[in-house]
């Protein structure tokens, strides 16, 4: 891959790492949130729904700035987390957090739709056959919503690969630390003669996005066939 320069390569690798962890870490929370929104009736449900969707509507810069305000080492929460060794500001972990939050609405939407498509009567039937709620979820609900979970995960991954505004506001644009692919493209466009590098990264971006879409299509078709849907 010598057609990518070292800085470009670093940016691509960092973006993949950030997106992968953003997707993986938010997946369990995404499934839980989607399940709660789809199946439980509790006070504040509409609030939660709004909160989840907020990053989709807010300017990404605002989301990034809110993150910076709450999680910078000078903010109380950020300081408390730093005391136990968790640091987000100006680290790749912060980029992953920003990407996870920006991709969260897409993930929850996809999973929630698939949960709503599962007939609760099947879950009732499983319960009458002696399955606890956890077993019902693991053996009935989860396998049936797997296509939706995969779609949600891949959407979140793709969103994370492209996330720019919240990331650059929250963790800045430090090469090798927080300079993800879109930040690198932006940085290259700011210096004379950087267009060639920018263009190569644009090509990588498009390739990754297409591959993610193709993978998601293939996986969900495969799983759908397996569950006989």
């Amino acid at each position: 891959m010598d057609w990518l320069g070292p800085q470009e390569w670093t940016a691509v690798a960092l973006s993949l790492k950030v997106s992968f962890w953003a997707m993986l870490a938010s997946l369990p929370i995404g499934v839980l949130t989607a399940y709660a929104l789809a199946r439980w009736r509790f006070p504040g449900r509409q609030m939660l729904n709004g909160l989840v969707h907020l990053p989709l509507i807010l300017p990404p810069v605002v989301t990034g700035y809110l993150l910076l305000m709450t999680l910078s080492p000078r903010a109380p929460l950020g300081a408390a987390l730093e005391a136990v060794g968790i640091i987000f500001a100006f680290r790749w972990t912060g980029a992953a957090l920003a990407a996870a939050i920006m991709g969260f609405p897409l993930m929850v939407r996809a999973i929630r739709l698939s949960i709503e498509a599962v007939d609760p009567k099947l879950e009732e039937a499983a319960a009458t056959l002696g399955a606890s709620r956890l077993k019902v979820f693991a053996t009935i609900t989860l396998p049936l919503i797997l296509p939706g979970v995969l779609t949600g995960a891949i959407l979140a991954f793709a969103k994370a690969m492209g996330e720019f505004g919240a990331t650059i506001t929250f963790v800045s644009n430090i090469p090798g630390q927080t300079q993800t692919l879109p930040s690198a493209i932006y940085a290259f466009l700011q210096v004379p003669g950087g267009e060639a590098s920018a263009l190569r990264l644009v090509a990588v971006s498009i390739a990754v996005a297409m591959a993610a879409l193709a993978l998601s299509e293939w996986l969900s078709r495969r799983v759908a066939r397996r569950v006989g849907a």
Partner: protein
Amino acid sequence: MLEIRLQHRFEGFQLDVDLALPPGLTVLFGRSGSGKSSLIKAVAGLLAPDRGRIVLDGRVLFDDAQGLNLPPHQRGLGVIFQEGRLFPHLTVRQNLLYGARGRAPNLDRVVEMLGIGELLARRPGGLSGGEQQRVAIGRALLSGPGVILADEPLAALDEPRKAEILPYFEYLRNQSCPILYVTHSPAEVARLATHVVVLDAGQVLRQGTASEILGDPDLVPAGIRSVGAVLEVRVARHHEDGLTELDAGGVPLFLPRVASATGTMIRIRIAAQEVILSRTRPEGLSALNILPGTIDSLRAGEGPGALVALSTPAGRVLARVTRRSAETLGLAEGVECFAVVKTVAIAREDIGRG
């Protein structure tokens, strides 16, 4: 032994029952909206009643006074739903074993009994309605339940499929734990019930045997059109011409070939609609079945009809006649007359082993 005492307020009506189920198959009988399915749900733990107590074999499943409400998975019941509710992502075999927790020494026997050996590796999506319901029965059985709850298990099937499934319930009734069976079909009551509980608007209207309940037009949900007598008869002989001769308390009855072996007792249901009355023994009639008897009661219904109950050597037979012919014939309590039933009028679907 299943004891159910519960009260629950719904929009529009109040469910209020107090029942103790005897062994065998108890039918909850009533029109839709009478609370049958809600009762099943409450027993299964899918609906928490406002008040009451449900006890299965000495184990308390629900008691509002103690604040006790066991979740469905701790109740040890087998539920057979109207729609089968098989798990689409599992094979038939995995479906069958879902409630068995890995211990199913009787898997082979149940599979053979239900005739589903060929289906084990398939997924439910490709099965017919009847096949799906057989798998659902097997799945409930293999979970080792203390009682089986069947919520209109045949309602979603067409007639041939119903005929395919009914024998399995007869088998279960004779072999396994108590069964609580919900239906609004008199044919299923006649064929399956050892005990019938009639529900109406959430209340128990009456309890009794199949023939007691089905012979009473006030109790049958579909009204007078589906009233009929249920007789226990013995298969006497299979004739060459395709007819089976039955012995109904010494009176021979003929009907199209019955599969049961000679000597077995079966139940037949004769709808009141299909019975003609005559004061003298009819001759020169094409109908083969003539039962002599004495009129027990005569009740004028709404409209032009009247329901006549006749005591015969075979048992109580019901006939629906017009009030005009009742007057013309001089029908009254204590009058002797003959009930004429056409061979084909004994509907095949209603024939069951007793």
